[in-house]
């Protein structure tokens, strides 16, 4: 008997093909989509209270989007071949179309919106800064120094249109990731049309929580006072989106339990045993119920600023852990049981290998390093830029 295998597994199921890096990929794209949707709250839906986080949300989305394809590249045996999906696009493969979804989102939505929003600052900084960084700004101005009110008005209108296009694009980016899992009809753990919707809402939850935490951290680093009205509004949105996300996940669960199809006993056993810690304890209890309770408490009780900040920070960290656990349970959980429904295998996480824990940790730190560089280049407040 193969170590780690219980019952009957087909030979190609014993070893997991999709590792922690494939867990990271939907986690990172989720943060991107969620952060962008938070930014669009201010831009399109005119929620003025969240304005202090508008630029931070956009830069966070960009930093994470730049890293999003890296776990996939590391997973591939021949990463250089991934470029072929642009050269010879395969329209019948959802996975192969990822390149275009990614490129569209990066180039047409995020970079364009950030450039339009920062253009006046870039022009100003290309005149005031010195050294090599000045050349970066000069290139970014594209040779135009026009920041007249008329030009800014055009930027604003185009930026608004880009955000309008960006919202369905953000939905597409993450809904598509859920679609890839949801459309694997041979896998009972994945195959549900609810999957893209669940992924979408969990993306919004994780993105909003990440920007909320980053806002508190960046404010502390920049020695600025946290705008409590802004934080309260973000926390309120996080609470409501999280409620929808949790309801959808519970709907999926209840539907599975009530329907109890041929896969149910196997999956139920898996959740009670191998996924108990990561699904029931970490994802549902610590990563969902506790942050929901904390956020809910702040909605119904009057609490001091310090207490609310601490509660938001705790809820934000737990939410990020919970959503990571959700990605883990989907990706890893879907590979732990046999298609024969008669056995289970084990995922052995390696450390310093190509798909081990170490590259996963580096890939999670990398976007934060990119964000730090972006924040140096593109300051959050216009005052700072001036």
């Amino acid at each position, binding site marked *: 008997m193969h170590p780690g295998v219980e019952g009957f597994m087909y030979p190609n199921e014993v070893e997991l093909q999709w590792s922690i890096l494939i867990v990271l990929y939907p986690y990172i794209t989720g943060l991107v989509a969620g952060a962008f949707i938070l930014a669009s709250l201010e831009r399109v839906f005119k929620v003025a209270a969240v304005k202090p986080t508008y630029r931070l949300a956009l830069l966070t989305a960009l930093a994470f989007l730049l890293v999003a394809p890296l776990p996939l590249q590391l997973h591939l045996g021949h990463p250089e071949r991934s470029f072929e999906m642009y050269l010879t696009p395969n329209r019948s493969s959802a996975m192969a179309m990822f390149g275009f979804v990614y490129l569209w989102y990066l*180039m047409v939505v995020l970079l364009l919106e950030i450039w339009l929003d920062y253009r006046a600052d870039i022009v100003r900084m290309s005149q005031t800064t010195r050294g090599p960084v000045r050349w970066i700004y000069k290139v970014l101005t594209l040779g135009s120094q026009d920041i007249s009110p008329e030009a800014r008005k055009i930027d604003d209108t185009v930026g608004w249109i880009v955000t309008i296009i960006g919202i369905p694009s953000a939905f597409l980016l993450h809904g598509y990731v859920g679609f890839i899992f949801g459309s694997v009809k041979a896998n009972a753990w994945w195959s549900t049309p609810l999957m893209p919707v669940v992924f979408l809402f969990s993306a919004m939850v994780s993105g909003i929580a990440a920007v909320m935490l980053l806002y508190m951290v960046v404010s502390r680093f920049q020695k600025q006072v946290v705008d409590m009205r802004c934080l309260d509004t973000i926390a309120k949105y996080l609470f409501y989106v999280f409620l929808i996300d949790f309801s959808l996940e519970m709907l999926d669960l209840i539907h599975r339990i009530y329907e109890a199809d041929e896969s149910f006993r196997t999956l139920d056993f898996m959740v009670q045993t191998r996924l108990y810690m990561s699904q029931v304890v970490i994802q549902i209890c610590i990563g969902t119920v506790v942050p929901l309770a904390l956020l809910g408490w702040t909605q119904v009780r009057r609490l001091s600023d310090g207490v609310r900040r601490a509660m938001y920070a705790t809820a934000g960290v737990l939410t990020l852990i919970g959503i990571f656990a959700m990605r883990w349970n989907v990706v890893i959980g879907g590979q732990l049981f046999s298609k024969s429904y008669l056995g289970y295998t084990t995922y052995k996480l390696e450390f310093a290998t190509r798909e081990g824990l170490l590259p996963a940790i580096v890939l999670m730190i990398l976007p934060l390093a990119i964000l730090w560089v972006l924040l140096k280049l593109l300051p959050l407040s216009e005052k700072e830029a001036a």
Partner: protein
Amino acid sequence: MAGGWRHARHLIVLALVVAAGLGAFLILRGAVVPAGFGKLGHYRAGAIDDNRRRPVSFAGQATCADCHDKQVEARSKGKHRIVSCEACHGPQARHADDPEKLKPVLPDTAILCRRCHEKDPAKPAHFPQVASTDHSGGAACNACHQPHAPKM
């Protein structure tokens, strides 16, 4: 409106940069995508001719039957009548081209038969299968069974 365009110069430059990037991509694509790609499906059409040009390894059932009529007759009476000769004896095109010079090696039945008939719960229950160590203690199967018509 002319004034409006004057203030949108940066957007026109951006459009030109994007167009230049797209143009460079299309030139690269034209240079690296092989001719005939997509003509018959999502692959290079010429790959079919390349494969066709490779030497044939299998002689085919009819070629074997031309010489080995005794074995073909024995096989036709047993359950193995649906198994082609080269499934067990391996690809024999070179032997068929020059039967005297290249003699195939007779397969070791102690190994060969187990490939299909070793007991495995994943196989359908009606398929003949044995736990070979219990069944024969590792002895060659053709000590008792005739491989061309194995039923005793």
